[in-house]
């Protein structure tokens, strides 16, 4: 009896704390936003800039998040090495870019620039996919039937191994992408105080195109359907004549290709690449995948875009009105708070019903 009562009290207390937390966050967001918007310190143009930069960041997160979510969907494995696959792609693109820049092809004229970007993407995708397949073959496949924690630890090991292998080969220093002139130019919008570069357009457009392509592939083609079938039930898929290993390898390859392409886009915007480049985008993209509902492909896309906006606009919108000094330092805090909120109130993520149903 006593234990029952105590349990009840504990339950109520926990629920109360969670509700309090929920209300506090909503209040913070609403009051903060109202004060910021009411304060009027930021012009419409600067909001637009923040939204665009959030969209650019979000597109990159989304592309990386797809790799996490697809591998999770098919193997129930969080592929912690995925951030490094992205980093490897960034490096791959870098080497192609410097080679093309070295022979003067990169900025010869707009057409060679476009060809160069395509070649960079191709190089990055080759590097990323090769590496991802090696990791799958060496670090994950032998552990396919081991308890779930074992491949997870192997994934963390693979992540460190790749990071420090790259450090061994290329040193701790920073490599910088050469500037692609046409992408660095501004889109002539004619709005005073608001600038968009062609690279921003390229990132958003290519992310959308790739995600749409992936969605169609998974939904409409036989191979894509077989990936979905394998992620639902490997044994039955094998009984249907589906080569389960091939479907898994294909999943890794697609995820890696997206990460490799994201790597080039990242390099073209942020310019810097070194052995540690994959770490933070990797964690953020993983967060995006969880936000959207891990295992769910549209969820990863949505989670990425959402996280990008939260990071781009969030600190200014929620915090600057409350008088928080230098709110952008708290960008990660906001991003991870969002993760905590989702984990508490909707553990399956924004689009996660299907995952919950399956579990």
């Amino acid at each position, binding site marked *: 009896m006593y234990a029952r009562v105590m349990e009840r009290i504990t339950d109520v207390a926990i629920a109360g704390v969670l509700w309090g937390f929920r209300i506090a966050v909503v209040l913070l967001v609403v009051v903060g936003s109202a004060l910021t918007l009411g304060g009027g310190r930021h012009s419409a143009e600067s909001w637009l800039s923040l939204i665009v930069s959030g969209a650019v960041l979000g597109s990159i997160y989304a592309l990386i998040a797809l790799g996490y979510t697809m591998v999770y969907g098919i193997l129930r494995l969080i592929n912690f090495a995925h951030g490094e696959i992205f980093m490897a792609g960034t490096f791959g693109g870098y080497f192609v870019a410097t080679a093309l820049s070295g022979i003067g092809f990169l900025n010869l004229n707009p057409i060679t620039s476009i060809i160069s970007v395509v070649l960079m993407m191709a190089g990055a995708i080759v590097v990323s996919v090769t590496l991802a397949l090696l990791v799958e073959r060496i670090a994950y496949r032998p552990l396919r039937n081991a308890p779930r924690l074992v491949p997870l630890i192997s994934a963390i090991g693979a992540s460190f191994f790749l990071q420090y292998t790259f450090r061994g080969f290329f040193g*701790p220093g920073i490599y910088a992408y050469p500037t692609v002139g046409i992408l660095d130019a501004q889109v002539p919008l004619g709005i005073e105080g608001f600038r968009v570069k062609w690279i921003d357009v390229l990132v958003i457009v290519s992310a959308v195109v790739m995600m749409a392509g992936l969605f169609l592939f998974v939904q409409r083609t036989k191979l894509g359907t077989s990936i979905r079938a394998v992620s639902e039930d490997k044994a039955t898929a094998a009984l249907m004549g589906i080569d389960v290993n091939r479907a898994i390898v294909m999943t890794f390859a697609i995820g890696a290709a997206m990460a490799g392409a994201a790597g080039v886009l990242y390099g073209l915007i942020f310019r810097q690449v070194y052995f*540690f480049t994959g770490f933070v985008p990797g964690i953020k993209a993983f967060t995006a995948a969880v936000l959207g509902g891990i295992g769910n492909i549209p969820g990863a896309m949505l989670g990425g875009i959402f996280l990008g906006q939260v990071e781009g606009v969030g600190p200014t919108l929620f915090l600057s009105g409350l008088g928080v000094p230098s709110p952008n*330092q708290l960008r990660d805090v906001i991003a991870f708070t969002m993760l905590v909120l989702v984990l508490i109130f909707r553990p399956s993520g924004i689009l996660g019903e299907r995952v919950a149903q399956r579990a």
Partner: protein
Amino acid sequence: MRNTLRWSAVLTGMLLVLAACQPASSGSPGQSTAESASAAASVDAAAVCAADEAGCVEIPSGEPLHIVFWGVLSGADSTLGEDSKRGVEIAIDDINNTLLGHDIQFSTEDGLCTPEGGNTAAQKLAADTTIAGLIGPSCTDESLGGMQTLYDAGMTTISSSATRAGLTVPDRPAEYAAFLRTAHSDYFQGRMVAEYLYNELGLKKLATVHDGSGYAKALAEVARTHFEELGGTITTGGDQAIAKTDTDMSAVLTAIAADPPDAIFFPVFIAGAGYLTDQAKDTPGLEDALLMSADGTFSPDYIKAAGPAALGHLISSPDTSKFAAGYQDFLAKHKAKYGGDPLSIFHAHAYDAATLVFAALEKVALTDADGTTFIPRTAYREALYASKDVEGLTGPLNCNASGDCGAPILAVYKVTAREVGPPVVWPPEAPIWAPEPDFYTK
């Protein structure tokens, strides 16, 4: 079971949030314990060790003498630690790998440039009783995290690149007796930046950006405070901060652009400074703002990181042109050993730190009949504080009671087309401005 999983996931998330919050660092007042050095020369080793509060490091005959460099050797800022580590390695080469009749065993400990990493590293170091000499750490944050542990273990470290002013002020906390440095204090660096911008260039409005690290935060503050003392103003929203992991700086830059400053000083590390420089040129309202960063970015990597936007960028840093004559030799050795130019600016300071360590060890070491060498720890610390007129690469080294050993020789550099390349050429040929010598004594 599922509930447990869910809660552990929530906890993990919260930890991530906590990790993302930079801990505020503060120092409490204390007193210095530097006493007059007393090198016990020919006294019986056992008696000396018994008398020394912290005991002795024992190095049996034939065993190597252990020297450790600790600092940031992995992650985003690892060029800083790598650069200093190379300085120490060359210093060890220069004494032919032997000291006090022992071979030198050199090892490193990674402090990650964070307070937590510094603390972990310090605990490992404190547990290793073979360590005779300690050089490091790289970052202010590592010092903040690790000093108490080292102090409690009776150890003493000498840093080549932790520059926060508070680390060597006369009223620093007691445990900072374990800390000396050959690097300059940011008290001078911050003031020099303010004087250059206000007095020399005649700029009136300043904004600063830090990255939450103990180093950047304090240096930005010194610069802001002195700029205001001189008569300048800090713009509205002119005290901004980024996270060390940020790549997209547009929000911060947009916030600064709301009240455009004449100059933005961002004493952050290489990656962040690169992003800020590159993205500032695309921020409406900041086209004409002068951009300046500090010694943490005095590296070819910064130029690579910032790209063409680095042209015209200003960097405050030690003045290599005023280094001692031996510096050119050092650069040649560096090139021969590592096949390239230094990665950052503190290799010479690290070399000098190692020189001080060797000299102090030689001063206090005792050897008994069977060839065992003893280093009394407290006496070693006192010997370091007593270092006077040691010839260093950065100039004469004189340690004072609050732990400053190097003379600050700072200057302002401007990045020109020569450095931007491609290919990137480093370092710049000469600084464009240096304060009058009496600046350091005012």
